[in-house]
């Protein structure tokens, strides 16, 4: 109870001692009204506080999801106010055998597996090395983290130049080293282009994994390492038996973020290969963009969006379930 409230309550006691029976009755009635008012207000108050968020997220997220789902059953062109219900036609087109959707999904899955695993792996190795506080470790931490602060469009533009098959730095370096047979058309060969995009993505996000792991490493108590050292644990044993198990929470977070991030991938792809050659680097989001913005097929574009949402939710549930089982 605050000092102010105590004062009020003390005042009430004095008044009650002075006052007669009639006053007491009216006071008790007033108190009852106040209490019911208070409980009404008390019940309403939390709703009022969350109302702005609920309304804003409702309009900008849940309404949009609802609108997208509804649109996916129409032939909307994305700009007009004409919208005819066409049932499952968009989904039938999307899910037909051999359709662009399956190619894009396959590319997305390959990209997801490659980037999530390698980003996490490299991030962990870097974090472990940097934790050793070698000379210049802060400098390298900043260098590895830098790509995250760069705009993806700039990263893509730089890699387009570096990966150019004829005048790019990678092939020029290989030729200089007489390794001509390794020189490739990095973004123009359908067998390689997807992995080139994976490499660019890893370059961009490896530093993020590193920082998250580094923060995780800092929270592992030092005495565990000391105990391990006394027990004669070598570097690899310490890594696999202490560091990695203690970082499982961090790893799970990175996997979840990696899954969501890979489903959202768009900028790097559109700026480097544009989904080509052919459809060898078509992603769900580049397909969605082409259908919606370039081909004026808003209905199909919405259907792709719904599928991406379903895939994201399913993958996230699987990941959380697997994580919970592992922790049990």
């Amino acid at each position, binding site marked *: 109870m605050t000092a102010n409230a105590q004062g009020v309550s003390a005042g009430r006691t004095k008044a009650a001692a002075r006052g007669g029976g009639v006053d007491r009755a009216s006071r008790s009635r007033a108190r009852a009204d106040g209490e019911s008012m*208070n409980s009404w*207000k008390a019940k309403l*108050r939390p709703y*009022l*506080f969350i*109302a*702005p968020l609920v*309304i*804003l997220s409702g*309009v900008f997220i849940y309404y949009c999801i609802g609108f997208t789902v509804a649109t996916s059953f129409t*032939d909307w*062109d*994305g*700009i*007009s106010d004409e919208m005819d219900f066409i049932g499952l036609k968009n989904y039938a*087109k999307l899910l037909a055998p051999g359709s662009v959707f399956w190619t894009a999904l396959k590319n997305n899955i390959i990209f997801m597996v490659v980037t999530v695993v390698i980003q996490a792996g490299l991030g962990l190795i870097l974090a472990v090395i940097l934790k050793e506080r070698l000379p210049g470790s802060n400098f390298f931490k900043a260098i590895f983290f830098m790509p995250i602060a760069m705009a993806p469009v700039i990263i893509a533009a730089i890699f*387009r*130049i570096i*990966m*150019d*098959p*004829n*005048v790019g730095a990678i092939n020029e370096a290989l030729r200089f080293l007489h390794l001509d047979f390794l020189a490739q*058309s*990095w*973004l*123009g*060969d*359908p067998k390689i*282009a997807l992995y080139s995009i994976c490499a660019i993505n890893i370059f961009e996000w490896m530093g993020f994994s590193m920082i998250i792991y580094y923060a995780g490493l800092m929270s592992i108590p030092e005495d565990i390492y000391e105990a391990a050292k006394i027990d004669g644990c070598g570097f690899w044993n310490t890594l696999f038996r202490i560091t990695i198990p203690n970082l499982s929470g961090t790893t799970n977070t990175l996997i979840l973020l990696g899954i969501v991030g890979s489903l959202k991938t768009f900028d790097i792809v559109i700026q480097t*290969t*544009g989904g*080509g*050659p*052919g*459809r*060898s680097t078509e992603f769900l989001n580049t397909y969605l963009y*082409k259908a919606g*913005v*370039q*081909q*004026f*097929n808003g209905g199909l574009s919405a259907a792709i969006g719904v599928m991406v949402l379903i895939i994201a939710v399913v993958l996230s549930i699987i990941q959380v379930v697997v994580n919970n089982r592992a922790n049990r």
Partner: protein
Amino acid sequence: MFTMKKTVAAVGALAMSVGLLAGCGSSSAGGSDEGLGTKDDPVELTFWTWQPTDAQWKTIYAAFQKKYPNIKINWWRTSEMADYQKKLQTSMAGGEGPDVFGVQAGSTVEQYGRFAEDMKDLADQYMPGWDSKVAEGAVEQTTNADGKMVAMPTITSGSEYILYNKTLLDENGVKVPTTYDELVAANKELTSKGLMPMALGAKDGWHLDDIFVWLSNQYGEGDVYKAAAGKKSFTDPTFVKTMKAWKQMIDDGLFQDGAVGTSTYPDARDNYFYARKTAFFPTGSWHVSAVLPNDETKGTAVEKDELGMMEFPTVGDKDTGPTTGVDFGLAVNKDSKKKEAAMKFVEFMTTGEGQQEWINTLQGAPVAKDMKVQVPSDATESAKASIDLVTKGQASSKLERKLTSQELNDEIGVQMQNIYTGDATVDSALKAIQQVSEGLDR
């Protein structure tokens, strides 16, 4: 009291969020036209576009301001067509589009047609005698499938041309080729001397579509438009020959390694042609501007070289010449309350000084029948010949550059890439294109 404050704060926050959302509604236009403005109260037009370029606009707008000081134009531009389309699409859907906007013949005429006022009605009212001054073929291309004239055509451009470096060819003792066989031989000669083959930006679907339409007309004039309208199959002999010719061009070593991973702009142009790594750069007629001294080549390795433009030599059975298309047309928003002022701008850009200013930059060929490019007297012989060739070729061409379905365009581009990389045969590629064609709502 404290509780009261909290309640007020919560209600306030709620009211603000509702107020914020209320601001999202679209505004609707109506009422009378604002006319041509006065010195104290000028009319302000909004104009969104992807061209002219910033430098070109500066000159054009200065001339416009001189003629119409009471009409101000709020100009917004992005050079990327896709970005422009994205912005226009969103704002049009929200009922907040600009007064005047640019369109290109093809899918944008069809898609944005419903947001535009009938240009024929406007032109009849505000530009008397316009129909005898503007090329009829161009007007057809800005008229949509329902017969509504969506925009006033402004400039035209077509494909397929080659920008060549005359100085580099001379240095290597190679003559400017005039036939396909000479082009292949010249390419071989140059590559044997350490240069690259011609720099094709085959990553761009739009460029491959240009080549497909141009090439297919050489095997069956007009067949590609019939096929795009669903009146012919893409598996017909015309297209089999077209794709075989495309494969032949690749096998003849005409293009650089990894062409399907290279964009026309800026990569093929800047990294190869302007870097003097190749003497040939396939592109469209709009690029003839590079043959005169200009900002684009300034500071590059070809700045002092003599550049020229030629038509891509005929590959097929018949010499059908280049394609042409309305590269740019001006549409007036049907909800605009400034139509009279907007039409002054349209007239200025189509049959007035704006047209002359713009075609002098060589961004495109004129739509005004009586206008000619004013070539600087100190231009090189190659430059004069190139400009003459492009202007005449564009004026005489009857072949449309673009097909109207973007989905079909995309598939053609993808399948041409697949043939390039060996991921598709001529037959499988054409079957895939025909499948997409059959799935279109016509």
